Every structure is written in structure tokens, then in C-alpha cells.
């Protein structure tokens, strides 16, 4: 631990604690690089048949980052997801989201509508632990390679299917031909209804809008992998395979859980709340002299601390307790937000940050627990995030320097002391590993 580091706990300052923290810090510094460490899933083989579906593609990547042998199977003309890319920009013909998710995978081509190719695919599936597919429900089955048939040739197989509405219910049957998209998954699962300007703002700013990334895609991919890993664990203990079914129209509601419960308990629709928050006030980013700064007050003592620092103590009387700051009255919430806005506008980020930090440090080190912990950070644009020293130290951005694709960066996370997630290769060329894989599994 460097001597410059500021500790937010009084408990960290006694001698015994210092010894423990230094032992822990040693462990942490050994986790900075995955070099030479084993991989959690090095014994696992995954066949990925994802087609124009980033939930499937991302799920496959997460297995590959944990060391599984992931074989991405595409039709000879390539997965159309290769061309789903911001503004049509590609790197050597490959779209940016697709390239970013092409980690540690083997790319082979097979035409699942061709009988001979299907035989080869079956050869691979017989040896696989997990298969991922995103075709319309029943399509694989009609080709003789659905779960009902595959469990006969490989009873321990885990079959992960990802579609908008899943593999059962009347709706799934009726809507089977509906393809996946991130935007429609966000919309149908309750996310976009909650993002956007307040009702009195002009069109189109008061309309529902999207989270500015594949929010539904990543959310459903991670929950799919999570459950599939549970199935894999069950298989290790019982040698039984099973089917895992993900409906991406559930992405957001199943992840955050608020929509079903709020819809039931209140039985009324929440209006879009702009930059306000449903639970807390103030809780958002406010414009200061040189950017946007987070002001987030959860407990009363956090709020009091923020008021003192921002020079707003005169309004304390009107907003004393959490109950005074409840946000169901938009006008009241706006009023408090305006007070904060005006105060923040007069200060620079550094001023606010330093004062918040000094206050929090003092409060956290005191044995009196009522001091409040005002916390803040600067809102950053992605290009600024890449320049932050903290992420450089953590190696959050993997620098690819590929003779085919050139130089670019991709984010990576997942620090584990024994089996960290990692990027070994980024390779996305269509069919580049077909021969290699066929030879390895004797399918030539």
C-alpha cells in the first residue's frame, strides 16, 4: 500500500490491521497479470452457433475468457452480426462490437442446412460440454439437431438457447419468428420506458429512449452464462446435462427486478424522470464549472454533509429527513435539484472533490458514526475513461496489436487470484480455424 493512499476507515489504522492489509495488498499485487496462471474452464468445450444475436455472442466470449475452448460456428458467408457496427464503421471488414467480442475463440464455417456439414457439427457436439444457439425456437429441432435429439447422442450436454421469448409458452410459439435485437429487448423488458426526459419536456426528449450500449445484450448474456455455469457444476456432480432457456424480452426486468414488483404493488406506471431519481434526492450528475459531478445523498447525514460543503446549509430546515426528500412530488424534487444545481455551478470539480473527500475521510475515521460520507466522482466520456490512471494500473484496457486488424483497445475485467479472466487472442476472420478444428477432432 502506498503511503499516499487515503484510508476511509479508522479500523485500518491500528498495527494489527496494518499487517493484515499489507498481506492482502501483496496478494492483490500478485493479481495484476494473468500471466502463467491456470484457467477456470480449461476442461470445457463450447460450440457457439449464435446468429445475428449479441446475447449469444457475448455469452460465448465470457466462456472463452475463462479458458473454455469456444468454437464459433458460422455459415460460409459469416454471421450477420459482423456488420452490426456503429455508423457502419469496420476494422478490415469486421464490425466493432463483433471484433471486441472475438476473444480467444476458434472461427469455423459450417452450413447447418447442409446434411454433410450437420454430420460434422454432430461430431463436434458429441465431444462438447455446452452448445449455444439463437435460432428461432424449433428450427434446430426441425434439422434434427435440437435438444431433443442431441441429448440422445450426448446426455451430459448443456444446451443454451437464447431468443426473444424463449422455448415454451403460447407466446413463444406465436412469436417464434421474431428476431433478436438489443433495442427491442431493452424496450420490451421495461428499460426504455424509464429512460428519457420529464413528461413536460418537448418532443422527442420526453419519449422513452435507450441506454447507449448493448445493455440488454450484456445483461442477458451474463445471466445466461451464470445459469449455464450452474448447470455445468451440476453436471460435474451428477453427469447430467440439461437445457437452459433465456428470453431476452426479460433482460431488464429479470435483472433489476423492479418492474414486476412495482407494477404489482403500486399498479401505476412510473413517468420518465429525466435526470431525477425515483428513490433518492439528490442523486445524479450536476453541471459544475468544468464538467459534471455526482452528488448522491443516501442517508440524512450524507445530505447534511453535502449541504455544508456546497454552502447550502440555509435550506437544511426544509429538507431535514429522507421523508422530506422523497421524490414522488416532481415539483418538490425539481426544487431541491435546482438548489443543488445552482450551488454546484459555482464550483469546480476539484473543489467539490477535495472538500467531499476531506469530509468523508474525517467522518470515516471518527468513532462517531454520524458524520456522513458524501461521495462524488466526475462524469467521464468513454475517451476520457481510457486516460484514467486507475484503469491503466489495473490493465482494464487490453491493447491489441494485430498484423491483420491493427492497433485498438478492448476493455476486460475479472480479476481472480488463481484463474483470472483474460484475452489471449482477438481473431475474427471467417473460417480461419476450420481446418485446425476439423483436424483436431478427426472430421476431415
Amino acid at each position, binding site marked *: 500500500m502506498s503511503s499516499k493512499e487515503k484510508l*476511509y476507515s479508522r479500523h*485500518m489504522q491500528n498495527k494489527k490491521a496494518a499487517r493484515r492489509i499489507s498481506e492482502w495488498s501483496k496478494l492483490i499485487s500478485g493479481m495484476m497479470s494473468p500471466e502463467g496462471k491456470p484457467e477456470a474452464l480449461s476442461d470445457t468445450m463450447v460450440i457457439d452457433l449464435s446468429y445475428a444475436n449479441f446475447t449469444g455472442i457475448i455469452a460465448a466470449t465470457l466462456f472463452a475468457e475463462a479458458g473454455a475452448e469456444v468454437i464459433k460456428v458460422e455459415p460460409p458467408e459469416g454471421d450477420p452480426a459482423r456488420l452490426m457496427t456503429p455508423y457502419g464503421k469496420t476494422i478490415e471488414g469486421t464490425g466493432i462490437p463483433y471484433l471486441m467480442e472475438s476473444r480467444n475463440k476458434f472461427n469455423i464455417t459450417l452450413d447447418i442446412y447442409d446434411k454433410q456439414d450437420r454430420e460434422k457439427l454432430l461430431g463436434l457436439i458429441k465431444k462438447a460440454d455446452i452448445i449455444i444457439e439463437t435460432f428461432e425456437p424449433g428450427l434446430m429441432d426441425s434439422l434434427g439437431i435440437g435438444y431433443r435429439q442431441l441429448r440422445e447422442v450426448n446426455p451430459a450436454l448443456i444446451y443454451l438457447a437464447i431468443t426473444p421469448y424463449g422455448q415454451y409458452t403460447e407466446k413463444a410459439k406465436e412469436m417464434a419468428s421474431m428476431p433478436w435485437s438489443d433495442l427491442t429487448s431493452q424496450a420490451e423488458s421495461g428499460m426504455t420506458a424509464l429512460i428519457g426526459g420529464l413528461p413536460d419536456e418537448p418532443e*422527442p426528449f420526453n419519449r422513452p429512449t*435507450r441506454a447507449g450500449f448493448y445493455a440488454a445484450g450484456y445483461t442477458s448474456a451474463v445471466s445466461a452464462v451464470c445459469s449455464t455455469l450452474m448447470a455445468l457444476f451440476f453436471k460435474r456432480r451428477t453427469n447430467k446435462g440439461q437445457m437452459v432457456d*433465456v428470453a431476452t424480452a426479460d433482460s431488464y426486468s429479470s435483472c433489476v427486478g423492479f418492474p414486476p414488483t412495482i407494477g*404489482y404493488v403500486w399498479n401505476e406506471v412510473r413517468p420518465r424522470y429525466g435526470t431525477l431519481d425515483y428513490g433518492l434526492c439528490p442523486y445524479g450528475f450536476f453541471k459544475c464549472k468544468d464538467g459534471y459531478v455526482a452528488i448522491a445523498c*443516501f442517508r440524512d447525514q450524507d445530505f447534511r454533509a453535502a449541504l455544508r460543503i456546497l454552502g447550502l446549509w440555509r435550506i437544511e430546515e426544509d429538507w431535514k429527513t429522507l421523508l422530506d426528500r422523497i421524490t414522488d412530488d416532481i415539483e418538490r424534487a425539481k426544487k431541491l435539484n435546482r438548489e443543488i444545481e445552482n450551488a454546484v455551478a459555482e464550483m469546480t470539480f476539484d473543489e467539490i472533490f477535495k472538500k467531499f473527500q476531506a469530509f468523508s475521510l474525517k467522518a470515516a475515521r471518527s468513532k462517531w458514526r454520524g458524520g456522513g460520507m458524501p461521495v462524488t466522482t466526475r462524469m467521464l466520456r468513454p475517451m476520457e475513461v481510457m486516460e484514467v490512471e486507475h484503469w491503466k494500473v*489495473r490493465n482494464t484496457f487490453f491493447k491489441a496489436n494485430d498484423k491483420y486488424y491493427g492497433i485498438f483497445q478492448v476493455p476486460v475485467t475479472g480479476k*481472480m487470484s488463481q484463474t483470472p479472466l483474460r484475452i489471449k487472442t482477438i481473431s475474427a476472420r471467417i473460417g480461419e480455424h476450420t481446418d485446425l478444428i476439423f483436424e483436431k477432432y478427426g472430421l476431415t
Partner: protein
Amino acid sequence: MPNDYFSDMAEMFEPSKTAEKSEALKGIRVLDLSHMIFGPKAANILAEHGAEVIKVEVPYQGDYWRSATYWGKYWKHSNPMWHFINHSKYFVGIDVKYPKGKELILKLAEQSDIVIENFASGTVEAWGIGYTQTRVVNPKIIYASLSTFGQSGPSRFFPGWDLLAQGASGVISSTGYPGTEHFFKVPDFYGDFYPGFFAAMMIMMALNYRETTGEGQYLDICQAEILMRSLFQFTYSSATGEELGRTGSQDPTTAPSGIFKSSDGKFFALSIGTDEQFQMLCKAMQKDDLAEDSRFSSALERLVPENAGQLNQIASDWIGSRSSEQILQIRKTCRFPLSEVEDDVQISQDNWRRQRGSVVEFDDPMYKKLVMAGSAAMMTKTPGRIKWLTRPLGYHNRYVLKTRLGLAEEEIRKLEKEHVVGTWDYRVGQRPPVYYNMEEDKLFHYDGEGDVE
């Protein structure tokens, strides 16, 4: 002749058969030292799949999320949003401030497979219940430390939560309309829940590894970094030298795309990713000439901003001239991504989600009926399930301390007198609902005899 595909699937996944089926994590013990959402959600996903999760809270104070609220509303003297983050867990009140409290926590850790905590980095080590102490008593432990900025790097000690992670990662600056000063966050503490799932996923990777090698390990699970992992903006900027910026409701990777208003004022999302989907859209709009137009015939051309803009206008006019009823009809056979913008009430009432089990009406002995999200992924052999809703602070003290640590009633009474072990303060969120008779609750008064469920 084999059965119809959908009837076979319906039988394999039938939600009403869940109770008869196995649990993937049966026998796995999790010590949940976490609070608020990020950590508790990770532990909850494990509980949903059969792990025995013991949640430790500070007596008479508890997890702050117990008494949090949306719009100041409570449900049966509890926060309704507390239940779906902490169902099917055991609730124990032990104060880590006292050496005896630490000892109890370490004893529980000794019997556990997984520990989850989300205090500010380093805090558990300072207290003496961190990984370096736990691995001494339990070398096979999987110890997950969850935090906003991670356990390493110059900002590791900065406290934070959902809002800070969303702002620091680039999520907020990427959400909203170009040229405006409004930057929207993803609501409902998404920056806690989604990383919570990611944490459970990493824990499952470690558990699978331990199953074959017998080795435990330490996990540094970083909330802001998980959000960053999910943005293609960084790769875009580093490859093109440009900023992606904000695009409102339009997904810049599909065209046409956006959220459009029908003639009767309902919102619909449309997002065309592939050439095949575009052909189908042109057919539905009866504009076959568009499909032939060289500006629109291939995906990469359609995505060029000028072309995408024109297509979005055409799509907006098309949806704007149709009623929601017509659009819902078109959806059934259109073969391109087109969906309603659904709200909370619709989602809580959708028939198909109830049939699927992704929205569940659960009947609890203490709280009665509550509607909650079911599993995010369905499993044929080991489906997830809700066993009970949450319980008051310290409700399972006797059950856990007697069955797991073999303490006698007198020992527990002594610990209670010393304030090491305790229950609830009479506050919303901590206490039982007023109508509930705790005196007759056998599990709360567990006497050490038999299994009470």
C-alpha cells in the same frame, strides 16, 4: 411421430414442477457479509439455485436497504424492493465490532464455500474477517470482494455506488440525445444489479474450478470495470480516433432503428440488424424500391448516418400512420425486430411472463402474496426458485447458531446480553409486519430440535 416441439418444451420447463426438481447448488454454503444491492444480489442468485446463504447484519441497524424506499412507500412495513434481492436467505444479526462477533463470523466462514462482501476496499481485512484470515481457517474458500473501483489501483479506497460507477465508466455520458445537457442514467440501480449477476458468474467460474482442483481463491469484482467491459465505445474510439457520442433512441449499430410513436400515441421500438430483416421491413412497408436502392441494400451502407437518418424518417412515418393494434398484428409475422415499449404494470401483468415463470406470484407465510421477478434463465433439471421472502433482522439467529455452530440456548442468551448477537430495532424494514405473531414462530424460537421449514 415425435411430439410437437413446443409441447415437449412446455413439459420440460413446466414451472409448477420446480419443487420436485434438483437444485444445482444444493449443499453449497455462502456467507453473505454484503449490504445494499450489488453484493446481496450476487448472493441471492446463488440462493435461488439452492445454495444455503447466511446473511450477516449488524444487530439493531441492519442492511440500509431494508428501510430504503421508492417514493416513500412501504409494503407491510417493509421495502418491497428488499424482498426480491434477499429472498431465500437466512438472516443473522452479529456485530463484527466485538471480538466474539468476529470469532462467530470466522467460524461460519470456516464452514462456508463462498464468502461475499462489498464494504469499501480493505475494510474486512482491517476488521480481521478478510480473505487473509479466512483462508487460514478454510484454505478452500472462494472469497469475493465486490467494490466500485476494485481492490487495486490508486482509486481503490474511494467509496462509491451505482451512480458513481455509471458516471465513471462512461455509461451515463453515452445515454441521451446529442447536443443536449441531459445525461440519463440507467434507472433502478442497474449499475448494482448487472454487476451483481457478473459477480455471481465469476463465483460460479471459481466454484467449477474448485470442483476439479480443490483450490479456492480470491476474487476482485469491480463494478465500474464490469460496466466498462460492456461498452463498445472504447474500441470504437481507439480504432477510429473519433467519439461515438450519444444517439438518443437510435441504436447506431442498426438501421433503421429507434423508438417511434404510433397513430394512437403508443411507443414501439424498431431495430433492423440484417439485410434479411431489411427486406422483410420493406415488404411490410410496401416499399420494395427501398430494398433495391444502393444506399440501403447492404447493412454497412444503411448504417452511414445520412442513410440511417432517411430510413429512420421513413420508419417513423410508417409507424406513425398505424395504430398500435395494427402494429401488434404486423409483429406476429413480420420477421424483423419490432416491439412494444413495455412499462412496469404491463410487465407485472403479462400472461406469458407468468406462464414462463419470469414473473412469479409468490405466497409467503409471513408476508403473503408478492409479485416478483423469477429466474433470469430457465433450466430443465435445476430450475431456480423462491423459497421464502425476507425475514426480520436476526430472525434465524437461533436456527443458524444452534444448527451450524452448535451453540446452546444459554450461550446465545449470553451473547445477546453482550450485544454480540441481536435482532431488530422497532423500525420499518427491520421489524416483522404488525399482524404477524412472532411469539408463535417456531423457527424464530428454534429450540434445536428437528428441522423447521
